[in-house]
């Protein structure tokens, strides 16, 4: 397989992981109006939880699910007991998430040490799958399938269920949503917890590709930030498209301009911020 094709597959895989990370980030941003700077920490925390659970003898997928649930619980606690105290003070909330991200990062360093931990690919998905006369790494294909499946479930949840309708209403106009009897503060907890859980889950299934190391949070958070700014906050389609764009920019940037990889990554985001602040798929603020 030639270099460009490998890069393309890696880009789409990273895009899938980024979607799992940034879908929650985007919903939180759309609903609570804050960039949740702990989101990278949730990803890393999930990855470390997964490593420990696998070490205790759980299967890979069960470990990923449990780690996701654990991180979701942690997210719910953070929202309910810390961010809730600061309702309306969005800047204070952002600063608190920043402080928490330092605490989580240091706690992980303390508990799991500074060495990178590699995660084994689940045995059933090792190797390559032949498609169109070429071999593709099976595990990467599986990640793409999972990301697309979760995207479909999230879309159905947002577009077809009562909860989704309430979330959309609160994203559009929180004050009016409260007036018609939607408990927006409950939605905050639910969405924050859901976003954290998805990020934690993504951390585990990203493990075999990215491995788990201190600083993983600082690597992932800016990517999620770029995705959401590119795609627009509160928009599922926006995070999906943004994730794949960032996946491509990141991998091709690393390969073509290794010294300027971060510039290649952040420049499109700046252009979007300057020309279209609401993002490619976001709606302008009313």
């Amino acid at each position, binding site marked *: 397989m030639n270099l460009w094709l490998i890069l393309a597959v890696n880009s789409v895989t990273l895009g899938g992981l980024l979607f799992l990370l940034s879908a929650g980030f985007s919903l939180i941003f759309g609903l609570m109006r804050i960039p949740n700077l702990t989101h990278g920490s949730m990803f890393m925390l999930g990855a470390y939880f997964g490593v420990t659970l696998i070490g205790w003898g759980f299967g890979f997928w069960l470990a990923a699910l449990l780690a996701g649930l654990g991180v979701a619980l942690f997210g719910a606690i953070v929202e309910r007991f810390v961010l809730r105290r600061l309702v309306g*003070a969005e800047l204070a909330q952002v600063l*608190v998430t920043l402080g*928490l991200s330092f*605490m989580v990062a*240091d706690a992980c360093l303390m508990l799991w040490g500074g060495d990178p931990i590699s995660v084994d690919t689940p045995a059933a998905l090792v190797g390559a799958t032949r498609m169109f006369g070429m071999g593709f790494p099976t595990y990467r294909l599986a990640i793409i399938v999972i990301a697309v499946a979760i995207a479909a479930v999230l879309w159905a949840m947002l577009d077809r269920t009562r909860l989704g309708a309430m979330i959309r209403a609160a994203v559009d106009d929180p004050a009016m949503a409260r007036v018609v009897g939607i408990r927006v503060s409950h939605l905050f907890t639910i969405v924050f917890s859901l976003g954290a859980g998805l990020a934690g889950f993504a951390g585990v299934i990203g493990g075999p590709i990215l491995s788990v190391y201190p600083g993983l949070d600082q690597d992932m958070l*800016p990517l999620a930030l770029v995705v959401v700014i590119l795609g627009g906050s509160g928009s599922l389609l926006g995070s999906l498209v943004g994730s794949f764009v960032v996946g491509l920019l990141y991998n091709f940037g690393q390969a073509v301009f290794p010294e300027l990889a971060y510039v290649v990554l*952040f420049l499109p985001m*700046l252009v979007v*911020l*300057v020309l279209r602040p609401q993002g490619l798929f976001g709606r302008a603020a009313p």
Partner: protein
Amino acid sequence: MKLRSPRGISAAVALLLLITLPFWIGNSYYVNVATQMLIYAILALGLNVLVGYAGLVTLGHAALFGVAAYAGATLINAGHGHIVVAFGALLTTVAVAAVFAVLALRGTGLGFVMITVALGQIAWGIAYRWISLTNGDNGVSINARPRPFGLMLEAAPALYWATLVVFLVAVGSMAIFVASPFGASLRGARDQPRRMTALGYNVWLIRFLAFLFSGFWSGVAGLLYLYYNQFVSPQTVALSASAEALLMVIAGGTGTLLGPIAGAVLVIVMKDIASAYIERWNFVLGAIFVLIVVFMPEGLVPGSTRLWRWGIAAWWPRATAVTGETGE
């Protein structure tokens, strides 16, 4: 400020203590810690122009600090004299600050924060990855401290006094800035941007100039940091460095002249103590951040007064009931 007023006397005493510090503190290690405090106090003063007086919270200021340090190191290693180094580094910083300002001032509030995060990350990415320019993770070091105007800065007290002079100029310029019509218009632009526009002020321009002023002093601090440390690495421009600077401003109390200085002293002391006893400075940094934002958002000095009163009220309800009556 009259010389015989209590404020004038305490300022004179403080100045005297600062000038004589290397004599009574003894150990050159502590002199170096004091130098660090002054350097970060200058950074915090500069940052406070934006965070406190302009109401624009930025998480990319370490980039400006770092640009000055990197530019200074590159110029020194190219063999330039100290005047070229200082002017070159500060001009570069102000130019970068201008670019930052044009981009970041597209947004206010959270938009501004996010753009500054992105800009800071670009600066970090360049410092970390553009190896031919910045030597990547290994950083850039300079062989010896430059000797501006023939001053020998090798000894700890000499560098301390040089930094103190710059620090006093910074404080003076801040005092003038706060009292000036420009300072007033900046506070106006923070509190009532629409009214200021209606009154004929160019709010964007006011904020832009404030950004340059803030960037200039961050650059001065960055250059002093280079002289002090003789080394600069990507860690200097990392997000945690920006957060640390922001913590100094917020901890001390935003929009006050002395707050950022107190904040810088506090953070450096905490960092010094924390790193002597535990390795977990980042955990402590995060925890202080969370506690201050949740419990004393107005800053440590006014906040601890409030908590103190609240504590007294909780312990001796009768006493406060009495003081409450006399107070009203």
